[in-house]
């Protein structure tokens, strides 16, 4: 009786997966492309408090590329974990979310474009912390990071290796910062540009310590597996805005 129920459930699961992948080939008739992102990753993307618009380096860079290539874009905000499944199930055409193309096996699920930003991990700590860098972290300490980021993977690795007591993986960077300021964790492992954006407004309460560490990160946009036509357009657009100075203008605007 129980076994039968399990078989039925798994059969349903497989049928559902099959239907999803069967639908994957299609696309919207409309020529507007859907860009999916998770807008809690400033300065790459965040939601403007007043207008509710998604703002940041990524939207402006993509807008410049779209203008160069004559594309129409529409942005959809979702959980970071849902971005790749969204492309796989054809609910989006492009991911642009400060996504590291070197992490995990992401590159097997979607096709990444050329790198538009390189980053490294940094240890962010409260201003009065005695820590001097990632190597000074003790095994009884706790560190936080955001789910689905390289920092999130890093704190879990450190916990498993016994380098820290607990790696707390939260849904948002803001939760990580709050936990650090509340004293629940001793530091946050964060992407350097993200941490820099926080320090812009919180340099009196927090600081980076030590050198960058961990795996080198390369941020890139991604398209559905095999959509080379779109990927080439985006790569060409990126090359063009790098050449005409628009790209540098945006870097200066968002990361200084």
């Amino acid at each position, binding site marked *: 009786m129980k076994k039968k129920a399990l078989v039925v459930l798994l059969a349903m*699961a497989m049928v559902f997966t099959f239907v999803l992948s069967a639908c994957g080939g299609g696309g919207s008739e409309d020529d507007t492309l859907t860009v999916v992102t998770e807008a809690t990753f400033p300065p790459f993307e965040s939601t403007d408090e007043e207008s509710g618009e998604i703002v940041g380096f990524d939207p402006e860079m993509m807008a410049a590329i779209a203008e160069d290539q004559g594309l129409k874009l529409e942005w959809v905000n979702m959980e970071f974990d849902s971005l790749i499944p969204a492309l796989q199930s054809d609910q989006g055409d492009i991911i642009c979310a400060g996504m590291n193309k070197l992490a995990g096996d992401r590159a097997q699920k979607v096709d990444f474009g050329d790198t538009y930003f390189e980053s490294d991990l940094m240890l962010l700590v409260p201003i009065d912390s005695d820590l001097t860098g990632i190597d000074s972290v003790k095994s009884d300490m*706790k560190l*936080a990071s955001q789910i689905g980021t390289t920092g999130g993977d890093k704190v879990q690795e450190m916990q498993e290796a016994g380098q820290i007591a607990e790696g707390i993986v*939260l849904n948002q960077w803001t939760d990580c910062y709050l936990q650090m*300021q*509340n*004293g*629940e964790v001793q530091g946050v492992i964060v992407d350097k540009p993200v941490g820099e954006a926080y320090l812009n407004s919180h340099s009196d309460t927090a600081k980076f310590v030590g050198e960058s560490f961990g795996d080198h990160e390369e941020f890139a946009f991604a398209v559905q597996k095999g959509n080379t036509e779109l990927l080439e357009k985006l790569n060409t657009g990126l090359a063009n805005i790098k050449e005409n100075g628009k790209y540098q203008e945006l870097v200066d605007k968002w990361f200084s």
Partner: protein
Amino acid sequence: MDVYLKGFLIACKGIPTTVVVSLIAIVLGAALGLLLALCSQTKSKILQVIAKVYVDVIRGTPMLVQALIMAYGVPWLLQSWGSAFKWDNLGGLVVPAVIVCGCNSAAYMSEVIRSGIQAIDKGQMEAARSLGMTHGMAMRLIIIPQAVRVILPAFANEFVTLIKETSVLGYVGVVEILRRGQLWNSSSFETFPAYIGVALAYMILTIPLSKIINGYERKVARRESAA
């Protein structure tokens, strides 16, 4: 198929945390729920109002919001008043998680317990009082033991509900069943196997429990009809 099995096994690693949090929370919820039920039954208007406001606030807000306030907001507030309070001193973020689940459960349990007490014939209280028992003695020896039998199925159902509701605790950093799946998904992008695994892990907890409750209810029904 291997990937589904992996998803299931990963989700199962969260079972101890889910079970421990649920168990402590249901005990806390039952104790606090009994206290609230007794408050709502007393003659004291103040106690009645306290119990009523508590139940309204808890039932009127999502548990996720309560968890976020308890885990993030409370330390922030206390520290802004100059206290050195942090959950880490009390054992980590699982502490506010258990408190929130317990407090939440208490609001529901108090209603269940109250209706259980009211279901006991008032002649029982009169008979107990006529023997010279105080109100408290009569509650403890006569009313509550009978009410417990009435509410046991509802109590167990609340436990099943609580097990499922603990899934919101991942938001405050507790690595229970759902969070295990989410963390694996975030690095492997095996979304469907991850969540199917999570669902199955919850089911191996909740379905046997529901069966036990049904069995007990049938047994009680048989006994009542035999009497």
